[in-house]
């Protein structure tokens, strides 16, 4: 059983920084990961592929949480950076004939470099002004996707070849899921550790009070830039995986809608929280699907007004988001902490 102190009795910083605070947490997380790996064995391909999209969203959401949640810089370009990753991964594989295992990190680095360029305005701009500057990144990149025909296939899009190890090709739902899940777990572990590092603390200092941070010797510009490029790196990886998942990349996917969706994920999940990114990604991926299936089922019961019911979907989606923001302003991560606290004190909560 989990036995943890009824207060904060840690004596060293090392104790305080532990990822797994009690052995129970370690076991629980281990079991959960095991469950994630075994799910495809007893679930349908549909569930597996939905979980693949969630895993991709988790990586993208972690990325935007680093720049927006931890460093406090609003970024509206995450969707476009994902596009950079997807197109460059496909390009490296098709033209340079690199294996996926080299092309994917290279695509991440390409996205990181481009993210850094579009992070440059953060030297001078803050808040809403920076948001508008990153919005420009979104539109410039979208234009490039549409017109750099040699790399992106222009308006027709371009195929994304599947990864291979030896003669094994990752083109089934399960193999894609395992690959994406492993990357997502890697991303979660890396982010968690990044935040315990010097860089991570600098990010949070920049967010909480940039003047104090600078007085303490944190180079604001440097860390904002690092944060932008790390965030874009995640987006690039997520984009490369998205390309692998669909097998075909088209510029019509990486629009402002996609960027806003990722921003919404971290706001709903919880800004500045790793678990928040995960919960937000799950929520924002499943809710539209649940609504689609739900309204579809209702529509088949009442075929006369079927399309009318379907058209309520977006409205319901909006209402759910508004309700969430009113009743869960700190995001799903906060609710998660409350649930944990409840069970920790159970049955003697006061």
């Amino acid at each position: 059983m989990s036995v943890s102190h009824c207060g904060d009795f840690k004596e060293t910083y090392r104790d305080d920084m532990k990822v797994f605070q009690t052995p129970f947490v370690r076991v629980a997380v281990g079991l959960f990961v095991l469950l994630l790996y075994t799910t495809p064995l007893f679930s349908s391909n549909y569930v597996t592929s939905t979980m693949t999209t969630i895993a991709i969203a988790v990586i993208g959401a972690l990325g935007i949480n680093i720049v927006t949640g931890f460093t406090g810089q609003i970024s509206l370009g995450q969707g476009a950076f994902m596009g950079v990753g997807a197109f460059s991964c496909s390009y490296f594989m098709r033209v340079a004939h690199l294996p996926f295992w080299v092309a994917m990190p290279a695509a991440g680095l390409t996205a990181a470099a481009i993210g850094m360029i579009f992070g440059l305005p953060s030297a001078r701009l803050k808040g809403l002004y920076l948001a508008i500057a990153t919005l420009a990144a979104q539109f410039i990149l979208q234009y490039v996707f549409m017109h750099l025909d040699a790399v992106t296939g222009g308006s027709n899009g371009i195929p994304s070849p599947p990864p291979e190890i030896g003669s094994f090709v990752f083109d089934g739902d399960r193999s894609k899921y395992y690959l994406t899940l492993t990357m997502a777990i890697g991303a979660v572990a890396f982010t968690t550790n990044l935040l315990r590092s010097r860089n991570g603390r600098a990010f949070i200092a920049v967010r909480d009070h940039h003047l104090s941070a600078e007085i303490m010797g944190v180079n604001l510009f440097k860390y904002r830039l690092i944060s932008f490029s790390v965030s874009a790196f995640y987006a690039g990886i997520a984009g490369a995986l998205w390309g692998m998942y669909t097998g075909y990349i088209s510029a019509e996917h990486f629009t402002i809608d996609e960027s806003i969706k990722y921003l919404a994920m971290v706001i709903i999940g919880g800004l500045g929280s790793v678990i928040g990114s995960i919960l937000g990604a799950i929520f924002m991926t499943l809710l539209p699907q649940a609504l689609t299936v739900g309204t579809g089922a209702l529509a088949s019961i009442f075929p006369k007004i079927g399309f009318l019911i379907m058209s309520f979907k977006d409205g319901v989606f909006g209402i759910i988001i508004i309700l969430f923001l009113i009743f869960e302003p700190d995001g799903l991560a906060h609710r998660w902490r409350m649930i944990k606290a409840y069970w920790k004190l159970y049955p003697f909560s006061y």
Partner: protein
Amino acid sequence: MKRFTASIALAAMAFLAGPLSAQDIVIGNLADITGGTGDVGKPYADGIKAYTDYINASGGINGRKIKLLQQDYAYKIPEALALYKKFKDQDKVVAIQGWGSGDTEALKEQVAKDQIPYWSASYSAHLTDPTKSPYNFFCAPDYSTACRAGLKYIKDNWKEKRKPKVAFIYPDVGYGKAPIPGGKAYALELGFEIVGEENVDLKALEATTQLLNIKKKNPDYAWIGGTKVSTSVILKDAKKLGLTTKFFGNIWSADEGMPKLAAGAEEGYMVVIGAALYGDKVPGMKAIEKVTGGQPQVSHWIRGWVSMMTMCEVLKVAEKNKELTGPGIRKYAEQLKNFDTQGLTAPITYTSSDHRPFMSVILAQFVGGKMVKKATIELPRKQEWLGL
């Protein structure tokens, strides 16, 4: 208590949705009802549904009923992908009726790999090349053919000595750009002078800058490759600026609802239509008039109907030969020769090396607030045009 109510509701849902008979043929339909193209997506989906109900009521596919699963993906690619997985893995559909360029392009590779025939309402020419997209089909002139037909009609009716001048106005998206290279090449071949090219966004609320450029170059004709709303914006602004240019446009650029949007500016506008108009005196219209109770439907509705009709024809042959599988449906689709849609479209032919349904294009024109048929242009089935 809440959980109890929910489970009752679920049980009721399962019961009412009805047990799926093993005899039913399951077809998926990715439709856009609420998304960016919902204004034309809904009538198209309605047309598909209406034909399904019609064929089920009149004997089905050799006695077997079609179970049509219509789902709204709101023109969002991730939702289209998720629904596609659901169709494939859970519902085990044998074929899919799709919709726009977003979903069709995104699913092109997957339907080829999973061998699921996909009838779309995206008519990009590259979908007609079976070496690139073996499982994609559609039942309308592709965008490039549409553009070529318009140019040919203009050239055939050109009386002056000098070369006719033409400009191209289109949105900077896949749908808009698709026919431009083919159209331009054909315009030069026919002896047009190309004087300009402008981008007007699908969501544009005004187009004066672009039209002032056009006005300077003063083309005799200009192609509009947008959708209904952006076309109405272009036509209204052109009227306001006093352009003498005549406009002609792609299949999605106008429908029967145009006069309401353009308020008179649409007079003389020529548009490509893919099928008969409601109320035309063709044999196929009788069934449509019957199921709609005489309520006029837009041309998109009729194309949805024809698309489902063509698919059902293929399903019938595949069913009879006991090959109701993806590859089987593709095989019999590619044997479809001069399939008579009862006058609703030109006869449809697919072969294993060419998925262009037909090469004849109907042009309609707006006269006095009404869309009337103007001409039918027959183009040669040139091999070098395939996929371009």
